[in-house]
């Protein structure tokens, strides 16, 4: 399998799906002429032309709505929202419309829509440009929410998302774009939506994570191995549907769990995972599930404060040690 970046995996997949299905089109701000704020769509306008790669005005509510309406008539729009912070102006369209249309109208019409957007943020992006809202979407029935951690999953899940007939929120991460990994060349390879993966097996403690934090967890697991602690890493990959059986099976084996996510601590993704584990594996737990997540302030800009506000390998190690006590 060739080794490529996460960015390349996304770019390849978008191109291949554009080629495969004439109803697939890309929409978003700066995805064409500018070639993508984070270069995910680089070269695609040149290759597929302005009908398939559509630069939009700054009107997220409008063009997300347009994408939903177009999907209802059979197009398969893949929308880029520059970062998840900006989806707040379009969230009514996603949650009050896209997520409900199939169900509320008795299954008469489908909304094959993908919304791609990077969440979280490192590097002093400041209070308005570094938030995570995937928990909000994961809360909403009718949506599917995926958040790949590797180039492999990025490709497989994006393909699955584009070929899926429901609205899929596809959560990316700026810090992952340059990471590298194996990606199969097989044209029909997909990663199924709704299925977590044990990315590393272990026996002492289960770490549950997704997206960028899975990369952190994998590094930490390696380090902990040197200290003689065997860490199993469950990568959620999908936040909705949530693959509870895989999480629970792992925790029943290791009897200890740490959940890590980049979002704010209270009411974030880690809350759902911890609550689920205590519910379904209570008798197997040797210690309370530890949660590792972001410090709860609007992210300060100053370098040290900013860096210190986000969960890290350090905080994961701290939590693993705590749960192993």
């Amino acid at each position, binding site marked *: 399998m060739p080794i490529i970046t996460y960015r390349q995996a996304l770019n390849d997949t978008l191109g291949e799906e554009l080629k495969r299905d004439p109803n697939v089109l890309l929409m978003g701000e700066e995805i064409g002429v500018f070639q993508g704020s984070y270069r995910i769509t680089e070269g695609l306008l040149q290759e597929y032309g302005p009908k398939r790669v559509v630069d939009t005005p700054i009107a997220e509510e*409008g*063009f997300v709505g*347009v994408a939903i309406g177009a999907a209802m*008539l059979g197009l398969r729009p893949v929308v880029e929202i520059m970062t998840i912070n900006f989806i707040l102006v379009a969230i009514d369209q996603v949650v009050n*419309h896209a997520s409900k249309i199939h169900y509320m109208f*008795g*299954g008469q019409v489908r909304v094959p829509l993908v919304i791609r957007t990077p969440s979280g943020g490192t590097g002093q992006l400041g209070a308005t440009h570094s938030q995570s809202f995937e928990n909000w979407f994961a809360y909403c029935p009718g949506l599917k929410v995926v958040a790949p951690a590797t180039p492999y999953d990025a490709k497989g899940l994006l393909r699955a998302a584009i070929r899926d007939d429901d609205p899929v929120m596809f959560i990316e991460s700026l810090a992952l774009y340059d990471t590298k990994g194996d990606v199969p060349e097989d044209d029909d390879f997909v990663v199924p*939506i709704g299925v977590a993966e044990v990315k590393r097996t272990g026996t002492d403690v289960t770490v549950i994570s997704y997206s960028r934090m899975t990369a952190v967890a994998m590094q930490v697991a390696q380090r902990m191995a040197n200290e003689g602690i065997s860490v199993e890493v469950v990568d959620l990959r999908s936040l909705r549907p949530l693959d509870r059986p895989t999480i629970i099976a792992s925790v029943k084996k290791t009897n200890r769990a740490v959940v890590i996510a980049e979002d704010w601590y209270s009411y974030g993704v880690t809350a759902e995972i911890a609550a689920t584990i205590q519910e379904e594996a209570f008798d197997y737990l040797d210690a309370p599930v530890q949660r590792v997540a972001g410090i709860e302030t609007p992210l300060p800009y100053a370098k040290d404060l900013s860096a210190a506000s986000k969960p890290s390998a350090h905080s994961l190690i701290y939590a693993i040690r705590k749960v192993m006590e």
Partner: protein
Amino acid sequence: MVKEANVVYPSLVDEDANELRHYYYQMLLLRRFEERTGEMYVKAKIGGYCHLNLGEEATIVGLMAALKAEDYIFTNYRDHGYVLARGTPPGPIMAELFGKETGVSGGRGGSMHLFDAERHFMGGYAIVGGQVPLAVGAAYALRYQEKSGVVVAQMGDATTNIGAFYESLNLAKLWKCPVLFFIVNNGYGMGTSVAMGSSEPDLWKKGASFRIHGEQIDGTDVLAVRDACRRLRDYAEREADPVILDMVSFRFRGHSVIDSDRYRNPEFVRKGRQEHDPVRNFATLLHEHAIIDDAWLKATADQVEQEIQQAIDFANASSDPKIEDLYQFMYATEVANTPGPEDALAAVKINRGEV
């Protein structure tokens, strides 16, 4: 941009008499459907929020007379009349209001969320303005797929104050989408008059910031509506260009069936209902032109009554959606780790205290 002078039809010679009679029949059907719906609501056959089209019959019937089968319609929550005039039988509509499995949305939607895919009636959406970008998207898809047809984005007057409306105007114009922005201007958004809500109360001028042509039309005159809609529909399709139609009509009752309308002067309402009744005015016109007579009116009224009663009977006789089907329409593409019928039964039993 023009404010169209009210067209007067001194003679109906160029009209097909059967068609005129059909318009009247349709308007009466809408009128009586809504009145009976109000009754059914009071009888608690219908729940939730329920908004009637009373006073707006000409707007709806005129629009539908102008549309072609390939056109699509997106509406707000005040949607009963649209799907009815588009040709959906009254039974499944009433059944939806009753929350029955035979309803147009399988009982899942209710009054505000009617849908009929077959007839390109693309739903009622209850978030003010939410339907407007969707309609632009449908028109976008028509253009993308090089199909003919236009898309109607129906909305109320007060909806023209929300951001989604303006973003939609810009995108529709920029992307050459054949959309009729169809504003049912009944003078109020709940208790808020047009002038209280819009700094530009001439709603047909609201395309000015977007280079979109707009017209004001007497929404109580079914022929004026039909003609304007035909002309502008064809324009939008031919030129791939959006237009705004400001359809002035009179809201007969409160905002929804539970609104007692205490903010409108009763005399104002009485007069409005008398002077701007599209159904009665059209009957008078047809009568004057000897296109209908009392016997026909009576027979039509009877027929309408019967049809609606049948719809109510149909709705009453229909079954509720099955509890085990609670998750039925959750996803179009099944994926792992989603609940099914047994989960539905188990969960519902707990909530109902049946375990």
